[in-house]
């Protein structure tokens, strides 16, 4: 199934990380895109919706923004 929920405008996904118990329909996945329009999107896989997001302009739940758009890696 296609889910058009990621934040930003870049579909070039440079890094991905998931909770240890995450599966296709449960848990959370962290998805980082890179380049212009990059974002860090955190997806709730239960509802397949955006749980949290960070861009250069948008602050997420931790009240932070991305410093740059060239995201290399994620670890959480």
């Amino acid at each position, binding site marked *: 199934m296609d*889910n058009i929920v990621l934040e930003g405008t870049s579909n070039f996904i440079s890094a*991905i*990380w998931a909770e240890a118990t995450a*599966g296709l329909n449960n848990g959370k996945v962290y998805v980082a895109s890179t380049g212009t329009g990059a974002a860090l999107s955190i997806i709730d896989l239960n509802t397949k919706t955006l749980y949290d997001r960070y861009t250069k302009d948008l602050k997420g739940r931790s009240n932070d923004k991305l410093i740059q758009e060239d995201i290399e890696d994620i670890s959480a």
Partner: protein
Amino acid sequence: MTYYSGSLLVLDNIDLINIIDYNYVKPVPSDDVGDCTNYYMWRSDRKFEWVDHESIGWGACEQEHLNQVCIDDSYVYTATSMGVDIIDVYTNNKVSYVDSIVEVSSVWASEERLYIGTAGEGIKYIDKVTISGNEVLPIDLEEYVCNYSFQYSIDCEFVKYIHGSGETLSVVTYSGINILNNTDSIGYKSSYTSTDVTKCFMTSKNELYYIEQGEINGVFKMKSTLCDWTSPNILYTSGSSFLPGSLGVNDIFVTESTSSNTVDNTLFVATSSGAYILDEGTANFDVYYT
């Protein structure tokens, strides 16, 4: 070096530089600028201008380039072009570092060690019990850095990526993959030759997933580290699996026994066009886009 008093500078015919403020003093080694040494700069009354030279790039200092991060309960470990930084996860401050290793390509932390992959010096490691320091006085851990030099070692000193399980390492180098176990008397080495491997992921059961980007693009899985590399157990190739054709694979992550059948794994794939999630037990998958 040839220069004019106007707004243009020709530097040994290498670069043409526009100097906004030409009221410079003279080119001097920038020994007095923080940690930036051996860089030449034009210094004006009002601001610094940096000289572009064939061996020196623009910028106030040589910029660190971040290659990879990993995390445990205490620290974030960063692999950078200028070494390793270790950051306290609670304070977000750097507490220790290693800057004697040039071009760290990858880091991976087991329970006891931080393994450091380098571009040219193979693998090194630090015992995690030696990590200390604070943000006021970050500690240089150079004296605790050891070479990974055991009975079984990597085939190529240029490391692209490290992952592992326990003290079993999976190392992607410029020549392929080496699986290394040097524990006690049961050590072994398993190798795959390919210049197209970019990353790997090893589960706690020593299943190995790896990315190839070349003649064949995709994710491959070996159910055991002692295996027939010519015949991967599972192939998820672009164009003949859940991954469409012409898709680049950038990163993978695996969660174990998270399939709806509670036995198999879930594979998370970062691609050049969206994020793919595959339940390996049912073969169902989802794609996430903007």
